[in-house]
């Protein structure tokens, strides 16, 4: 189980990286944390001729929080984001979701932006980006652009990034006042990919009445699915579960049937909303 040969490039700056990608991007891959990419290479399920390794671009290793929200640089490890106090205060969903990403050792190396670029619909961070309405900023020799979450995920393992583009950061908006969030998932073993997961953001008005209930789903659709369940929740938990079950489009695999995942989407919707509501009210 050894990777096929490749040429390695270790740019020291974003400019150098994008110029390399312009040259080799169509037959290459960006390597950041590598926690999803390296197993694929080791099993020779992919054999890119070039790897553009951004681990030496120290400028990209940051987590910045400002009045608008949290910006995560392409070299920020999951563990850095999870433990960033300011980021956690601004957007609690980040850490709530991140603790479900594999195990701490993987999170020490894996990057949040990398997992977004990987665009795995069973990835927790894809769900968070979609649910919070965040965005990804990408750079190429052609310039820089910011891609909203709704336009970023095109399909399973397919993002809007062009082969010559480097995702340099992701942006997660600050949580609204009087809001609460939660992330609930069921996996076979602790740390495995979720059979189904549900992230929730609930917003209240100053009197504590529910203004908005939004849920994001993982492992039950080709791209991150976000549902506005405000009305359904007002009609009761069973209605919200029913809407969720109707909206998801899971597939069978060796770990779970589509029917079971659909069932879980309903059950976990209620649990996730309850938990988010409890947090919103404290």
């Amino acid at each position, binding site marked *: *189980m*050894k*990777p*096929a*040969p*490749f*040429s*390695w490039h*270790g740019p020291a700056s974003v400019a150098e990286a994008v110029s390399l990608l312009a040259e080799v991007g169509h037959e290459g891959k960006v*390597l950041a944390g*590598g*926690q999803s990419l*390296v*197993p694929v*290479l*080791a*099993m020779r399920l992919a054999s890119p*001729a070039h*790897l553009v*390794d951004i*681990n030496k671009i120290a400028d990209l290793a940051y987590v910045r929080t400002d009045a608008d929200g949290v910006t995560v640089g392409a070299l920020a490890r999951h*563990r850095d984001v999870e433990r960033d106090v300011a980021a956690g205060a601004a957007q609690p969903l980040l850490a709530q979701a991140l603790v479900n990403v*594999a*195990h*701490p*050792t*993987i999170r*020490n*190396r894996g990057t949040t932006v990398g997992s977004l670029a990987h665009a795995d619909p069973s990835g927790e961070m894809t769900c968070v980006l979609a649910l919070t309405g965040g965005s990804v900023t990408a750079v190429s020799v052609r310039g820089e652009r910011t891609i909203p979450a709704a336009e970023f995920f095109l399909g399973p393992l397919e993002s809007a990034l062009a082969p010559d583009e480097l995702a340099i950061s992701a942006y997660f908006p600050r949580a609204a006042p009087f809001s609460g969030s939660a992330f609930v998932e069921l996996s076979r073993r*602790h*740390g495995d990919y979720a059979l189904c997961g549900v992230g929730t953001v609930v917003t209240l008005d100053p009197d504590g009445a529910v203004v908005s209930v939004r849920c994001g789903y993982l492992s039950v659709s080709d791209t991150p699915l976000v549902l506005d369940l405000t009305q359904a929740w007002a009609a009761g938990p069973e209605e919200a579960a029913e809407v969720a079950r109707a909206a998801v489009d899971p597939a069978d695999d060796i770990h779970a049937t589509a029917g079971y995942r659909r069932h879980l989407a309903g059950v976990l919707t209620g649990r996730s909303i309850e938990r988010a509501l409890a947090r919103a009210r404290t």
Partner: protein
Amino acid sequence: MSGEETVADHGVESGDSVHLVPVTVNGLARSATVPARRTLSDYLRHDLQLTGTHVGCEHGVCGACTVLLDGRPVRSCLIFAVSVQGQEITTVEGLGQLDADGDPRSLSPVQRAFRDCHALQCGFCTPGFLTTITAGLAENPEPSREEAVEMIAGNLCRCTGYQNIVAAVLRAAELTKDPDAPNADDGHRHEGDR
């Protein structure tokens, strides 16, 4: 060993790029020239002859290959050696070695605790647990049982059923505070024994 450079003849396949990889391992400067696709685990084991780091799956799940990279546990099978040029690595060999008298007390608290608690059987997964727990206790010196479980939750062991590894995490915390802390039951302790 300091500053030693190895140029192994890897037999370069076309398309392989080849790189000098200087690193600091267990406090010593080491380097070798290797193809880009050489994983850090293979680099440590076969270029630097540090065979204490074990490879159980080569796809990042089992944790046997865990080493500390700038102090943090990472899977060395999921990192290419070339990516860590100039960084600091700690392997199981660097946690502690027996002194000339063979006194077990010369080992690190985590190594001692593993022996005290019978936290290893075949020993293949053990290096990954030892490195992970060493870093975990540096961060959280007094873990609860739940925190001890969480600390080792990403490492597979097929022999022990984990009972004694959890006990060893707690025992290592105890030994870190007091190297003379008495060991329950003369030589080992077990959770839940009658």
